[in-house]
C-alpha cells in the first residue's frame, strides 16, 4: 500500500514500514501513514511473505526471508517517480524493527533515517536459551520441523537462521540517525533491550521512553505520543 501526499511539489521523502511477528501492514501503520501523508511524507506498507495478504507460508518465514523482502521493497521504492531517493527511511515495529535495522546495515547508503519501535532484539537471547518468547521450547525444532506459536507454525528456518545472527555487527554499517522508542511497561520485549542498543549507538541514537506503554501501544495516548515523536524525528531528518 502506498500513501502519497496529495499536494506535494516535486519529489517527496518516503518511509518504508516493516510490521512485526504475526502482524500485518495494517497494524498501527494505517493511522501513522495517514498522519505522515498530511505532513508531506509518503509511505509504503506491505505484508512480509507468509503474513497477511502476501503469498507464502508462515512456516517458511525467517529473518533472512524478511530482510530479503524488505530489500526488494526498497528496490521497488527507488524506482517510484515521486520518491526522493536521498530521503528514504525505514521504520519497523518489534521483529520488524530488527529487520529494519539489518536491512539498513546492508543498504547503509540508501537509508537516511531509521525508526525502531520496541525492536525485538531479544529474539537472539531467547533462541540461545532454547526458547522463543516466554515459554516455547525450540530445542527439538530440527526433529519437529516447527513449534506451535499459539496456533501458527514457526519453522526451523527462523530458529536456525536466528541463532547465527549478530545484532550489532549486522546493524553497524548504518551510520545515520536512529530513533528508538519503547514503552517501559512492555512485557514482551523488555525495555532494557532498547537501552542496550541505544547505548551501543551512542550519539547516533535518540532514545525515547513512552511511560506506561505496552508492546502494542494499546492506549491511544501512548500511541499518539509515539506518532508525534516519529513525525518530529522524520521531519527533522528529512529537513521538511
Amino acid at each position: 500500500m502506498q500513501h502519497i501526499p496529495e499536494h506535494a511539489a516535486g519529489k517527496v521523502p518516503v518511509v518504508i514500514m516493516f510490521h512485526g511477528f504475526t502482524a500485518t501492514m495494517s497494524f498501527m501503520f494505517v493511522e501513522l501513514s495517514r498522519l505522515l501523508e498530511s505532513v508531506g511524507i509518503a509511505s509504503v506498507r506491505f505484508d512480509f511473505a507468509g503474513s497477511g495478504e502476501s503469498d507464502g507460508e508462515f512456516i517458511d518465514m525467517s529473518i533472512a526471508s524478511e530482510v530479503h523482502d524488505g530489500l526488494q521493497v526498497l528496490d521497488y521504492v527507488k524506482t517510484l517517480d515521486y520518491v526522493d531517493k536521498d530521503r528514504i527511511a525505514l521504520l519497523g515495529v518489534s521483529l520488524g524493527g530488527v529487520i529494519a535495522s539489518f536491512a539498513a546495515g546492508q543498504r547503509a547508503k540508501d537509508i537516511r533515517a531509521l525508526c525502531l519501535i520496541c525492536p525485538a532484539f531479544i529474539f537472539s537471547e531467547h533462541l540461545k536459551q532454547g526458547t522463543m518468547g516466554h515459554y516455547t521450547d525450540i530445542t527439538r525444532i530440527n526433529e519437529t520441523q516447527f513449534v506451535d506459536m499459539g496456533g501458527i507454525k514457526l519453522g526451523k528456518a527462523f530458529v536456525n537462521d536466528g541463532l547465527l545472527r549478530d545484532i550489532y555487527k549486522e546493524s553497524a554499517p548504518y551510520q545515520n540517525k536512529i530513533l528508538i522508542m519503547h514503552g517501559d511497561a512492555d512485557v514482551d520485549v523488555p525495555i532494557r533491550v532498547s537501552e542496550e542498543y541505544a547505548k551501543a549507538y551512542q550519539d547516533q541514537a535518540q532514545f525515547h521512553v513512552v511511560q506506561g506503554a505496552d508492546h502494542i501501544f494499546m492506549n491511544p495516548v501512548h500511541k499518539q505520543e509515539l506518532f508525534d515523536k516519529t513525525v518530529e524525528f522524520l521531519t527533522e531528518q528529512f529537513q521538511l
Partner: protein
Amino acid sequence: MGGDLVQTAIEWSSNGHTLRGMLHQPDGLSNVPLVILFHEYGATKTENKFIYVELSRILEQKGIASIRFDFFGSGESDGELQQKSFASDMVCARDILSYAHTLSFVDQERIAIVGKGSSCLIASQLSAEMSADAKAEGSVELSAEGKTGVKALVLLSPTVKTWNEQYSLELQAAELELDVDRGELAVRAVSLIAGEKEDNKGLIERYQKLYQQQLSLCTIADVSQVVETVNSREQMMEHIVAFLENHLPRG
C-alpha cells in the same frame, strides 16, 4: 476448478466512507456460492494469525467465493476505531451484502456469513433483517426454503465482551434485541463454534434458543477469542469448511 488463486482488492462507498476489502473468486467459475467474513472488534480482514486469509484460500479451492473486508474504523477502511459503533458496523454489514448482490458470478441463493467474537451479533442481526424483509414482502415461503440471501451462518466464539466498554454495552443491547421469531426464519443452518474454556455459556444458550434445531454446537479445546494451538486451528478450519460445503452445495 484448478488454476491460480484469484484474490482482488475491492473498495466501495458506505455512508460516505470508503470501505476496503478482498474478494476471492474461484478461477473461471460462475454461479458460485459466496461467504462473507466479518472480523471482530479491534481486528481486521485478515483476523488473528491470518485465519480468515487461510479460510478464504481454502474455500476458493473448493469453488466457494468469499469477501473479507475491514469495517469502518478498522484496518484499511476509512474512519478511526474510536468512531466505530455497533450501528456503524450494521451499516457496513448491510452495504457489503448489497455489494455481494451485485456480483454476477455469485449464486444469490447460496450466501453464508461467518462472524467471529463480537461480529457474531452483527451476522445474526443481518440475517434476521433479511428474513424480516422477505416476510414483509410476502415471500415467507421463499424464506422457509432458505432463500433469503443468507443461507448459513458460522458463529465463531461469540462474545459481547470487548476491550472497549462502550462497544460492549452496545453488543449487550443488541443481544437483547435478537428476536426469537425472526431468528427461526433467518437462516437454514447455523454452526456455533466455541472453546471449552470460554466464558460465554449464557450467550450460547441464547443462540440455541434463537436458532433451535437449526443450530449445531461444536466445541473445540483451545479455541477462544484467539486460536491458541495449531491443532485447534486445524480442527476449526476443517469444521467450518465442511459445514459450508455441506450447506452451500454445488449447483
